[in-house]
């Protein structure tokens, strides 16, 4: 049980030094998941055989005197929309039940190459579409801090597993906030890298121009460690590019001596009104005070296209999703309807049977906005507005090192609370979608808590940086993390008090 709250960096160091073995860590992790995950529902499946075999191989190499990778022996969880070779990958959908990919996602391969051990696959909103990880065919994931509440989404399993001490590192994906929002609701660190820095090869696509892969951890330092492994151009993904001026471990290097002294943070004026929960805003203000105390300046900036962001996101993301999900037709892989007449019926029935209602709604909306006669008014228009949003961010970022604000307008809500009104669900993404539209990097880190009903619910603060400024952004986040100096707390009832 002792590994549960240790950092990835510390665990890797222990494996490299011989203090512990990859096998021991893997076994401990599997045992903890067995003991505790019944309450949380983070893991859709664990791969004990594969994980132990990988762990043994790592230990054998260490015994043979070989140097081990940066994540040596670290148990990691992978969101189930990232392909793992031979290990069932469902994207949280009935459509892909039993689907075994023929290859590892590049991000997964990089973790493995750094000697991390993939323990299992984490729950998500179907195909990444959602903000609560509630409605998948395998049931909801629960927030470790309050099991009657959602962990956020769509990377709910990834956030809860890290916040609940099951793994120190998980991989998630972020299309409109899906790493950052659950990180905020679960009280852990979640990073959305700049678009194009982490390969999407093997990520089951939702919206190709918005999707990114990123890490969730319990500290900024661990996130930096993971990003040093994940970031880099990939020949299998033509939308990737190398980090400009890269050194071997740019993130860890940037964190050395990181401080907020002399840094300028831009607080977005429009965000206050959009923050539903007053307690969340108070937590953000407290974080600003801490930042100032550490030597940072806080300036007010304006982002006047904030209200246009969600409709823009709706049009662009659903359009791309409607095309990306067109391939699921029951013919080459995936669910196939048993009773169907001709080919059109076979496809239509297979899809209707296997896609959940939210996915179906988004496919239909996306199909509509691309259709002839509406393409110009909706899709083209939205793409143009998107450029304006990116320009607005660029302007707001002038003269500041990063933008700061709440990650989510409210803390974790109750399971089922937002189910009836999809539009209410979309509204929780207000602070996160625009960064995907602009391709910018952003990180959410814990900034205290609110207690609406007595239980402490985490609040996250978000930092957003210029495109490709990821290492500098992480450094800033590390400075803020240090300035906040939050007391270590653990979710109750999951073992391992501070």
């Amino acid at each position, binding site marked *: 049980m002792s590994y549960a709250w240790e950092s990835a960096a510390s665990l890797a160091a222990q494996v490299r030094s011989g203090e512990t073995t990859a096998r021991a860590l893997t076994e401990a992790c599997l045992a903890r998941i067995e003991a505790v995950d019944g309450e949380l529902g983070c893991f859709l499946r664990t791969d004990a055989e594969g994980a132990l075999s990988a762990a043994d191989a790592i230990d054998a190499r260490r015994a043979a005197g070989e140097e081990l990778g940066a994540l040596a022996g670290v148990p990691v969880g992978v969101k189930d929309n990232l392909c793992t070779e031979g290990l069932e990958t469902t994207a949280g959908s009935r459509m892909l039940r039993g689907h075994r990919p*023929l290859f590892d996602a590049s991000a997964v391969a990089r973790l493995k190459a750094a000697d991390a051990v993939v323990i299992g696959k984490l729950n998500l909103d179907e195909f990444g579409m959602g903000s609560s990880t509630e409605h998948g065919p395998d049931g909801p994931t629960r927030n470790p801090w309050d099991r009657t509440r959602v962990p956020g989404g769509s990377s709910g399993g990834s956030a809860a597993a890290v916040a609940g001490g099951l793994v120190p590192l998980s991989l998630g994906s972020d299309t409109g906030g899906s790493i950052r929002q659950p990180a905020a609701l679960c009280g852990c660190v979640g990073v959305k890298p700049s678009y*194009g820095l982490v390969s999407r090869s093997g990520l089951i696509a939702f919206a190709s121009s918005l999707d990114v892969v990123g890490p969730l951890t319990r500290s900024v330092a661990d996130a930096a460690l993971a990003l040093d492994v994940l970031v880099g151009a990939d*020949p299998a993904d*033509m*939308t990737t*590019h190398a980090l400009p001026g890269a050194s071997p471990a740019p993130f860890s290097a940037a964190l050395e001596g990181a401080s907020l002294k002399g840094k300028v943070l831009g607080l977005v004026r429009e965000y206050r009104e959009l923050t539903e929960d007053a307690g969340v805003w108070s937590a953000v203000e407290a974080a600003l005070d801490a930042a100032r105390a550490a030597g940072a300046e806080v300036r007010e900036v304006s982002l006047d*296209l904030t*209200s*246009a962001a*969600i*409709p*823009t996101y*709706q*049009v662009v993301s659903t359009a791309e999703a409607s095309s990306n999900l*067109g391939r699921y*037709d*029951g*013919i*080459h*892989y*995936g*669910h*196939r309807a048993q009773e*169907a*007449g*001709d*080919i*059109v*019926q*076979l*496809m*239509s*029935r297979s*899809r*209707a049977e296997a*896609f959940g209602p939210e996915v*179906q*709604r988004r*496919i*239909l*909306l996306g*199909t*509509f*906005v691309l*259709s*002839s*006669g*509406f393409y110009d008014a*909706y899709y*083209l*228009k*939205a*793409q*143009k*507005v*998107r*450029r*304006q949003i990116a320009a607005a961010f660029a302007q707001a970022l002038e003269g500041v090192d990063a933008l700061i604000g709440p990650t989510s307008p409210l803390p974790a809500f109750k399971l089922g609370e937002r189910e009836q009104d*999809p*539009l209410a669900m979309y509204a929780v993404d207000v602070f996160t979608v625009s960064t995907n539209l602009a391709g910018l990097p952003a990180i959410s880190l814990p900034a205290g808590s609110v207690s609406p009903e007595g239980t402490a619910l985490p609040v996250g603060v978000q930092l957003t940086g210029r495109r490709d400024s990821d290492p500098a952004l992480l450094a800033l986040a590390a400075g803020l993390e240090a300035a906040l100096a939050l007391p270590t707390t653990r979710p109750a009832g999951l073992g391992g008090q501070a």
Partner: protein
Amino acid sequence: MSDASPATPLDPEGLAALTNLARLELPDAERAALGEHLGRILGWVAELDSVETEGVSPSQHDAPRTTESLRPDAVRPSLERERALLNAPARDPLGFLVPRVVSE
């Protein structure tokens, strides 16, 4: 049923055309709610009209690539047929099975 574009998703005919275009067979009971939901979203999306975008290019891509950076034309090993058909829901010895398709 044709694959022509839907009139609008809000009227029954348009919605039927849309579900056909998206290959999603919907039971009648769900259609009304869906039509309403889509209508609300489209109303919301209409806000975009108020944003000034004269002269703005819609292209989202980063700078164009050079041809030098493209993938060299080298053959890489393909999958064996059994592996290629591994996840196929219905197959015969040669390939993926589908109901008989006429023409084209």
